[in-house]
Structure formats: structure tokens, C-alpha cells
């Protein structure tokens, strides 16, 4: 198991290395090593390629781990920040900041967005409490609808304040604009992902359900609150920096769960590595399809994500969760 994980990390590192050297400007490895690379190439590498690659890794692993946490806490295979209204709520928070306190530093913006994201998730939980008859697919169904309602309100307000362009930028999942100095908040997401790993057992126990968790002496509500707060903050930091990647938090966790199960202490590293690898791969595809132009990774995942999700729902939906 350890060996395989090492191999997976290695494969992801290869993807990351490729990501450093693919793009419009020519940055070649041999020139760099020989010390003959032009100053411009060096600048591209340090100011654009490295931040972009790091951002992809941090956002990918963070969103995938978020998906797992939500799935354990809500005990449903089909929720992730993009099917539970969380992403839209975070965006709504961003808009509020933009309108009422545009001067806030980025960290404060992120925290406001996180607070809204958390509120959005709780609204979903409240709505779900009212549903008399729950089937596994009902949860993402209502989640997506809630997201659509929040989104409509968001666009309406954005339209009134003439902020539509900024709002749409948050939906793209575009890493081409990631530069040094503009992505560092994703390290917060990374720290939170590590925190999730430290508390992994709590979330596995919570995933057993309230009775089991209480029997084992876990404060179920506190674990839920902790997990959803982590999810909200990671989601918010991804939304404020690069926009979102649809269903990333669904594909990777479900694959990992099918292969290795749900003991998070063991599987979360896989989920994180898988998320990073998938996002890196999608970004590379987006860069290679029509050079010198780029297709945002959000669009690439927007095609892959729903296909994978449909496959999961139709295959797994009737049976599990």
C-alpha cells in the first residue's frame, strides 16, 4: 500500500513537472540546467509556471478532500461542494464583500466567503430535515437546485451593481491567470487539508452515523461542525483564487472509496494525490488542445465531471449510499 502510494505521488510529480514546461513561452529543462536559459524564461517559470502548478496541486487535493469530508458527514455519496450549494454560497459571500467592503485584504474576503459557504451548507441541511422521504439522489438534487437559486440571486445583484464580469470569472476554474502573489491563499487550504487528515478518524467515526459515533464517545455535532467548517474554508479559498472545478470532489473520493474503502486515515492521502493529479491532467489537456490558446480547466472538468458523475449515479445510485 505504501509502495503504491509512493508510485502515485511520483506519477503526480511527473505531471507537475510536465506542467512546468508546457505553455506558450518556451521554457526548456536542458537550458535551465545548463544555465543558458534566458532571463525571460526564468521569469516565466518562477512567476507563472511554478505558481500555476502549485495552485493546481493545492486546489485539486483540497477540493477532493473536501468532497470526502462532506460525503462522510452527510452520509451520502453524491454530495460535494458543487452539489450542495456550498460553492454558490461562497461566491455570494465574495459578491457581498465586493459590494460592501471591496478594500478588505484577501484573507478577510476568504473568511467572509467561508462564512457564507457554511451558511449555505446549513440551509441545505435544514431543507433536507424537512423532506419526508429521502433517497440518496435527492440530496444532490436539492443541493444543485439550492445552488441554482443562490446563483440566480447572485447574478441579479451582480447585474444591478454592474459586477457580472467579476462574478463570471469566479465560475471559470481558470488557472491561466494564476501568478506569483495571487494564489498564496491556497496554502491556507493546504493547511486545512492537513488538519482534516489529523482529525481523519473523527470523520470516519462520524460517517458511521450518530448512534455509533455517540457510542464511541465522539461528539457528533462538534465533528460535523468542524468538518463542514473545514469544507467551507477550503472551498472559499479555492473560489477566491481560481474559481471552481465542477464535481472534482465527487469523482476522486468515489473512485478511492470503491477501490480502498472509507477508512480516512488510510485513504485521505490517496484522495489528495488523486485530486491533484486529476486537476493537473485536466489543466494540461486544456493547454494542449488548441495551442497557443488555452481552455480553462473548469471547462475540461465540466465535460469529464458530469460524465463520471452520471456513471457513478447510474451504476452506484440504486445500490449504495
Amino acid at each position, binding site marked *: 500500500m505504501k509502495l503504491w502510494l509512493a508510485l502515485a505521488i511520483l506519477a503526480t510529480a511527473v505531471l507537475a513537472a510536465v506542467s512546468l514546461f508546457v505553455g506558450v513561452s518556451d521554457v526548456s529543462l536542458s537550458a535551465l540546467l545548463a544555465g543558458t536559459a534566458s532571463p525571460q524564461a526564468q521569469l516565466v517559470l518562477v512567476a507563472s509556471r511554478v505558481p500555476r502548478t502549485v495552485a493546481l496541486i493545492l486546489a485539486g487535493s483540497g477540493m477532493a478532500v473536501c468532497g470526502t469530508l462532506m460525503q462522510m458527514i452527510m452520509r451520502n455519496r*453524491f454530495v460535494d461542494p458543487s452539489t450542495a450549494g456550498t460553492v454558490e454560497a461562497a461566491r455570494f459571500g465574495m459578491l457581498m464583500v465586493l459590494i460592501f467592503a471591496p478594500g478588505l485584504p484577501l484573507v478577510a474576503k476568504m473568511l467572509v466567503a467561508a462564512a457564507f459557504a457554511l451558511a449555505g451548507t446549513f440551509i441545505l441541511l435544514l*431543507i433536507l430535515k*424537512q*423532506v*419526508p*422521504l429521502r*433517497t440518496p*439522489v*435527492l440530496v*444532490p*438534487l*436539492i443541493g*444543485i*437546485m*439550492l445552488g*441554482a*437559486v443562490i*446563483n*440566480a*440571486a447572485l*447574478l*441579479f445583484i451582480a*447585474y*444591478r451593481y454592474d459586477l457580472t464580469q467579476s462574478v*463570471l470569472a469566479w*465560475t471559470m476554474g481558470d488557472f491561466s491567470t494564476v501568478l506569483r502573489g495571487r494564489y498564496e491563499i491556497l496554502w491556507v487550504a493546504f493547511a486545512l487539508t492537513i488538519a482534516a487528515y489529523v482529525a481523519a478518524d473523527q470523520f470516519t467515526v462520524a460517517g458511521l452515523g450518530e448512534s455509533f459515533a455517540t457510542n464511541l464517545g465522539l461528539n457528533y455535532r462538534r465533528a460535523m461542525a468542524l468538518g463542514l467548517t473545514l469544507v467551507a474554508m477550503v472551498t472559499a479559498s479555492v473560489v477566491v483564487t481560481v474559481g471552481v472545478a*465542477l464535481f472534482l470532489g465527487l469523482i476522486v473520493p468515489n473512485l478511492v472509496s470503491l477501490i480502498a474503502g472509507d477508512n480516512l486515515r488510510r485513504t485521505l492521502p490517496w484522495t489528495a494525490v488523486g485530486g491533484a493529479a486529476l486537476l493537473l491532467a485536466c489543466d494540461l489537456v486544456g493547454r494542449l*488542445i*488548441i495551442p497557443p*490558446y488555452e*481552455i480553462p480547466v473548469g*471547462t*475540461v472538468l*465540466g*465535460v469529464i*465531471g*458530469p*460524465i463520471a*458523475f*452520471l456513471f457513478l*449515479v*447510474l451504476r452506484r*445510485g*440504486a445500490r449504495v449510499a
Partner: protein
Amino acid sequence: MSPDFERRRARLVLALLAVAAAIAVLAFMTLGARGSWSFVLSFRGAKLAVLVLVAYAIAVSTVLFQTITGNRVLTPSLMGFDQLYMLLQTALVFLWGARGLTLLDPRALFALNVGVMVAFSLLLYRLLFARAGNSLHLLMLAGIVLGLLFRSLTTLLQRLINPNDFAVVQDRMFANFNGADGQLTLTCAALVLVVTLGLWRLSSTFDVLALGRDPAISLGVNHHRTVTLILMLVVALVAACTALVGPITFFGLLVANLAYLVMPSGKHRHTLPAAVLIAILFLVGGQTVLERVFAFNTALALVIEFLGGLAFILIVLKGRVR
């Protein structure tokens, strides 16, 4: 409720709705008009035609789709049909190349588009219902996710066709009620007319089909054939209104369920006209209020999306879905 009372009540509600819709139309045409009347009337008349056509197409297609699928939450747009239209339109441009298309008569292109759309939707419908037909929730989720997929594919194709033009990517996320040109309006009106004639001939089967597959068959309706025909006509209506204004996800759901709510019975001779009148009232009235009172131009789709989404959640919450 006695049949007599029911008929009188239905007539009364329809009359009230008709008066309300007429007032909305009148207000739309006259409120805040400045300058030459002939210009105002022809300018607003073109827009009114689009709104009424769209209202009619969405109301009729949604009610009939719900009849043949036997539930009151699924709508063609929730199944991703209007996103499919957008995708096919883009795919045609992509495959043909923009230059090839300009040689083609726009009306022939539209016909081609609708034809492909009908074929694809039938395929999609059969596939989905074969795979997920036993669970309505699963069906809805699959439809919504398919809609997302079609939208992403459309975006992807648009990028491939024209990588420089980032503007095209997002501007069709929500419907736009201002942009349709006269030629297209006429073509769509013709299509809607043809579809309506087709539906008229099938109209005697609607109430029977609403009973479900088995009773309909035992009452002598050729179920498979009739449902397929109605579905094709419904898809053509969806194509017409998507071509005019773009995708509107929740509007059909809203008007159909309001129509069921205000009419004393589920008979199509009551619900269909009620849905159409409610749709006109909403679209024309809503546009009038937003445009003339609040001076917003393109926000109507967002308001509809907001209210429709809330309505959807409420309907699911009430547990009428199974």
C-alpha cells in the same frame, strides 16, 4: 364537485387569467412610450411576439411532457433538452465550419437543427428511461447533470471554434428576451403553428395518457406511438423557444404547477390554456414591470430562475415527488 360547477369554475378562472394577460400585454405595449407610436408599436410588437411565442411553447411543452412522463416535476428543460439544443447548434457550426453555414439558408439550417434535436432527444429519452425510469429522483438528477454536461460541451466547442472570443462563453447561460431577430421569430412562429396543428389532432388522447401507460393501452390508445409523436412535437417546441431566447430552466415547472393549482381539474382542456395564459402573464407582465418600473433590461430570466428554483424545492419538500 359536480361537472357543471367544475366547468363554470374553470371558465371563470380562464376568463380572469385571460383578462390579466390582456392587461399585461396592453401595459407592455403602451407604458412609458415616447415618440412616434408607429415605431413604438412595431418595436415592442416584435418583442411581444417573441415573449408570447416563448410563453406558449414552454407552457404547452411542459404540461404535455409531464402528462406523458406521468409526474409533475420533470420538465423538458430539467431533462437538459434546451441545453442539448444549444450544444447541437454549436456542434453544427463546429462540424460545418462557419463559412459553410453562411451559404445555407438560415431557415434550412434551423430545420436541420430541429430535426437533429428531435432525433437526439428521442434517443436520450429512451436511454434514460430504460436506465433510471424506476426512480424519479434519479431521473431528475441524471437530467440536470446531462444539462450541465451539454453546457460544458457547448462552451468547449465555442472555445475551439473561436478561442479569441471569451465573451461568447458565458453570455448564453441565461435566457435573453431582447435579442431575437424578425426572420427567426417568423420561422419559429411557423414551426409552433405546425406543431400546434399536430397536437390538435392528438388532443383527444391527452387525458387518457394522463391515466398512465396500462390504462391508456387498455382504453385502446397506441401508447408507444402516441407518446413518441407527442414527445417529438414537445421537443420541437423546446427547440423553437430555445432558438428564440436561450435556455430557461425553471419557467415551465413554475407555470405548469400554477396551472394545476388554479384549475379545478387536471383535464387538458383546462390546464393547457391556463398554463399558456399564466406563462404570458408572467413573461409579459414580468418584463413590463422590470423594464418600465425598475428599468432593468435583462434580469427577467434571473427572476424566473430564482422563483422557479424555489418552487422546485418546495414541490420536492411537499413530498409530491416519488
